């Protein structure tokens, strides 16, 4: 009878815990310790001080982010209000010839009413309740839209975390990715 997945994982876990002590002990003894050392002091954690105090002002952050994003091959538009978003996104997707769109299940995105302003597109909202269907939809969508958790001006990066309402596939699988970055979420570094 084939081993169940749980039994298999439990067996591997048992083997792992048995080997762990010898593995760590070997390292400790090579480092000249009889046992694993205690919590080490780590006074030089992270970036040097001159860098941790580096801060761009609000306007510089926006300009630097846009420059870096473009330099990395992307396109950016700066909008004064949320009200301008639907028009700009609709125009961009039409220009790029997108026929299908998937978006994260974020309330701010629902308010933009893409279904109404882009009736010619096929729309999907990410749903963790139907993961396989959501994955297939993301893999077939021409464009994915998400609101960034953060963005980093110095490198021109967006930070996307995943959760029940925010699938990794939405920002990864479609050919076109549109990130909406609220200016207050834009960090220097």
């Amino acid at each position, binding site marked *: 009878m084939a081993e169940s997945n749980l039994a*298999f994982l439990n067996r591997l876990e048992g083997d792992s815990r048995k080997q762990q002590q010898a593995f760590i002990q070997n390292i400790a003894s090579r480092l000249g310790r009889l046992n694993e050392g205690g919590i080490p002091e*780590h006074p030089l954690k992270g*970036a040097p001080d001159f*860098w941790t105090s580096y801060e761009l002002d609000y306007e510089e952050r926006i300009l630097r982010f846009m420059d870096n994003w473009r330099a*990395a091959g992307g396109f950016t538009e700066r909008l004064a209000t949320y009200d301008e978003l639907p028009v700009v996104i609709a125009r961009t997707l039409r220009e790029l010839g997108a026929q299908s769109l998937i978006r994260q299940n974020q309330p701010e995105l629902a308010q933009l009413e893409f279904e109404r302003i882009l009736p010619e597109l096929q729309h999907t909202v990410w749903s963790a309740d139907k993961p396989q269907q*959501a994955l297939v939809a993301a*893999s077939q969508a021409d464009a994915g839209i998400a609101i960034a958790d953060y963005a980093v001006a110095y490198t*021109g990066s967006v930070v996307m975390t995943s959760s*029940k309402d925010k699938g990794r596939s939405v920002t990864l*699988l479609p050919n076109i990715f549109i990130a909406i970055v609220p200016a207050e979420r834009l960090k220097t570094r």
Partner: protein
Amino acid sequence: MSKPQGSSVKQRSETALKDEFLIDAVKFTTEKLKNGKLAATAEHGNWEEWRERGKLIRAHTIAHLDFYLNQFIENARAQGVHVHFAPEAKDAARIAVEIAKHHQAKSVVKSKSMVSEEVHINEAFEELGIESVESDLGEYIIQLANEPPSHIIIPAIHKNRYQIAELLSKEAGQTLPPETKVLAGFARQKLRDKFLEADIGLTGCNFGIAESGSVVIFENEGNARMVSTVPKTQITLMGMERLIPTWDDLEVMATLLPRSATGQKLTVYMSGITGPRRQSDGDGPEEMHIIIVDNGRSLQLGDPDFQELLNCIRCGACLNACPVYRHIGGHSYPGTYSGPIGAVLTPALNKNSGEWEDVANASSLCGACYEACPVKIPLHDMLVYLRNRKVEDGHTATGEKMAMKGFKVLMSSYKLYSKAVKMGQVGQKLLVRNGVIKSQLGPLKGWTAYRHIPALPTRSFREQWKALSTEVEASMPSMSSETKTRLEQMVLNRKKGGHE
């Protein structure tokens, strides 16, 4: 996998040096990467401070590896990861295969991982009839060519677009033009299908974060993120030294690694993965395994000559800067890793310097690798230590042994040395033309095949010294009493053997 023929670095280099495509392709890309790095580090500024901080963080982590590895393991387990230990390469392959077999996997899709090359994971899957597909474009190309990678981050660096077009055309069943956009487009579509049908995703790991048990992967194509998002089971192979203590430390590594590797401010994707999919998540792997690999790494711990080797962050900057690698490419080196880091890592991990023939000699010891290294690993010193160990272990060639014995006798006696120089001055008259020797007679060939030997001067430096010293003394500004005392003290100290 096929590598150029020849049992030694020298023999394989001779083959490589006859391959004009290879030389041009390697030169073009390493030059681009090297210049990109120089521009990026200059633009960022304070590069030496960043290097120093990077070195200190890595050295601290390795010095406390037992603690940080345990911390990483416990935190990863708390997030639902299954952690495994592989003391040797074969253990890593065995565990990965066991997981694949249990899940009755038919296909594995891989993102770039040098450790997976080290443990020959593709061969292990293939033996079981499991398809293993490389999803990094460069890795995919060399997988089709049945070759190992020839650069840590640009595995197909030795191939030009015409050779790549030929390989991909065979796979496509039609002739593809040698245009980068078309070739990348074909590979992208082909690989995309593989992602969606793969049972297992296998990744490497740039850094493990001890404080949270997370795995961090840097990449440019999005393939590693796909490998860790789409398949239901994820296996991550991690060298046991890949750790850093905290997310704060990642800021330093994220500053150093992409700039040193490709001259980018940050790679296109940097994924931080903390455990498998949570119950409420819609994607990500249902099951996540991390295999922690030793395979000779622990042999460097506690070794004052080689412990710093474990600080390496695998950026490949030393390869791009190395005048030897830039001429002979990666396939001339033995083992998985090439360039200066490979020349040290391969014999060090295997602890058998003698068996790796002349790899430690594949360096001019110019130190360009050290200058390029973002964590300041003194690879050129390590190459000397390796040569030293090779001699101590009795692996020196008979001819070289005899030559060194003769050199010792000659250099121990001024009279003998002086006579030898005189004989040389007379004997060279047959060979010197325009102040240099070009003749490739007998043992001279080893040198003169590639460069000229300057002729011995008619009077040696020693013979000229009396006149020179008078001249120097007459032209030297007077020394301050403080400097004079210090120098006299140094000379005295040296006479006592330098112990005081």
